[in-house]
């Protein structure tokens, strides 16, 4: 069976005035139909750039693909012309973003924007755009599917009349319009309050289950990933340092950075457990550390870590760890 998404040794740089930043340094990930994969990591680890790479949304320049491939159902999408990419966006792969307010046009009603999106999908598929009233009918169905009450009234409202949670639901509804196989969600609940976040995560989980969607969820919040994804990849400074089933990673992280990240999260249910910070700070990517990019902050770093880049090793079934010294 061909994987839904296969990322192989993917390298991407940003050309800046100060030099070339090696933003993604050899990413390997596989996603099958219906998989739920969380990408977790701190600021600047490259998780959003990776997510946007799936839809060729990184502006170039500064972004430059150095090497590797991203295959969607076997086709290398990195070499796809813009026309071909447009057929995939929304129809094969859809995306929702962190800040729903900035992805809606404040001047247009929700209905108009959804009709435009739906008819745009028709055009991208090479078909004739359906009439507005038909697009509107589908929009109402989609709004109901994401749990929004009174879709007809909502279609006539403008974004400023909606709460943050409602706006994000509208964008999720639009993302479903082209019946995608993969939903990429980049920090979809970071701008929302925690009670609303719980509702939106439950909605995403229901859509994934009901529609057989594959999900790639990018988050800085391990808790959000733990709630939503069966597997998780931990990123650090442009590399995937560990990939594992979520429960196994949380129970026993094998990479020193994954271990540090989990130990830093304060636990509401264990107030006496003191979170431990990771000494130091994230490195610059124009001149990243040699060898393992985590070595300057790693308590177990050796000479080999400073000179030789660790490649992912399958230490246990379904677990890959990019560390010279990790043991199962």
């Amino acid at each position: 069976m061909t994987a839904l998404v296969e990322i192989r040794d993917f390298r991407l740089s940003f050309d800046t005035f100060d030099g070339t930043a090696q933003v993604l340094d050899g990413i390997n990930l596989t996603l099958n139909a219906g998989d739920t994969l969380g990408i977790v990591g701190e600021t600047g680890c490259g998780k959003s750039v990776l997510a946007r790479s799936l839809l060729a949304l990184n502006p170039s320049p500064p972004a430059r693909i150095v090497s590797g491939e991203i295959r969607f159902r076997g086709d290398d999408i990195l070499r796809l012309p813009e026309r071909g990419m447009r057929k995939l966006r929304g129809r094969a792969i859809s995306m929702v973003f962190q800040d729903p307010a900035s992805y809606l046009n404040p001047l247009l009603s929700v209905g108009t924007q959804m009709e435009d999106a739906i008819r745009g999908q028709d055009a991208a598929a090479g078909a004739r755009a359906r009439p507005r009233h038909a697009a509107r009918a589908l929009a109402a169905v989609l709004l109901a599917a994401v749990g929004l009450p009174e879709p007809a009234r909502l279609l006539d409202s403008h974004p400023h009349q909606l709460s943050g949670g409602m706006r994000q639901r509208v964008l999720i509804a639009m993302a479903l319009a082209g019946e995608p196989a993969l939903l990429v969600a980049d920090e979809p609940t970071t701008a929302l309050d925690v009670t609303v976040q719980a509702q939106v995560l439950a909605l995403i989980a229901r859509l994934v289950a009901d529609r057989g969607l594959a999900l790639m969820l990018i988050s800085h919040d391990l808790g959000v990933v733990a709630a939503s994804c069966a597997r998780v990849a931990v990123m650090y400074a442009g590399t995937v340092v560990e990939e594992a089933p979520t429960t196994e990673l949380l129970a026993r992280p094998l990479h020193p950075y994954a271990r540090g990240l989990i130990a830093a999260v304060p636990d509401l249910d264990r107030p006496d457990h003191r979170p431990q910070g990771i000494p130091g700070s994230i490195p610059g990517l124009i001149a990243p550390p040699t060898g393992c990019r985590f070595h300057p902050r790693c308590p177990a770093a050796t000479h080999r870590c400073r000179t030789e880049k660790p490649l992912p090793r399958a230490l246990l079934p379904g677990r890959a760890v990019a560390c010279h010294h990790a043991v199962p």
Partner: protein
Amino acid sequence: MTDALLHAQGLAKTFEGRRGLFQPASRIQAVADVDIVLARGAALGIVGESGCGKSTLARLLLRLIPPSAGTIRFDGQDITALEEHAMRPLRRRMQLIHQNPSAALDPRLSAEDAVAEPLRIHGVASGRALRDRVAALLAEVGLPSAFLHRFPHELSGGQKQRVCIARALALQPELLVLDEPTSALDVSVQAQILDVLEELRARRGLAYLFISHNLAVVRQVCERVAVMYLGRVVEEGTAAAVLGAPRHPYTRALLGSVPRLGARGMAPAAAGEPPNPAAPPQGCAFHPRCAIAVDACRSSIPPLLAVGDGHHVRCPLSL
């Protein structure tokens, strides 16, 4: 309560919205009927979602904005209506740490200058003594002398927040109001900053008013917690009681909504979203989202009721 460092009673703030051409001015009650007691050296957490009034409360307590009603006492002195010139000597004793250290620092001031500025303005030290004092303050927050001449753009987020803390400490305050001090930071850095804050409190006997939406962080730092919803405190007590055995339906919903590392799946603990403060629901503000609401909840605002030792809940149904 004479030994309280900060004591507010019946505090309220109403903002007048702009009047439209054909519309009367809208009134937003941002804070209503809030009592706060903060003892010397204690840490009180204020938690709640966006729009609950927690940042407005912080600004009121520091007298950065005037209250619409209520009284504020700082170290026994009524500061509710003090003139600005009378407030100034007190301002040295109360300092604010913001959420975003990048916005709080002047990009043209080095770490040394940023920390020296309040000392110069208040004429506390100059020359060699000033430089020594600044170096000691930066060392106290974990920034060795190599950082003295760095500018904000040469510092990481965590290092910038350390500079802000050193600057706030410069005038030896007794009260720090921390408004989401780690929300803009990565989790591995957040743990470092929380360590710095805990050490400082222990060493200097500082009192913290710690505002955060992150319940786990508040549980770690604070002995007492007040939960706010639409301008009112709905539950307050020890952190162990409020966050360990919550009574108010909103506090329960809030705690139930936090994603836990150990748990797969997410069951929403409350329907709907926080209401618009310009059009608050009648009665208990939480009733439209509350699973146990009865008729009385829709008509009158329940009082804060004592349910245990120093534990108060604004919900008669939770008794």
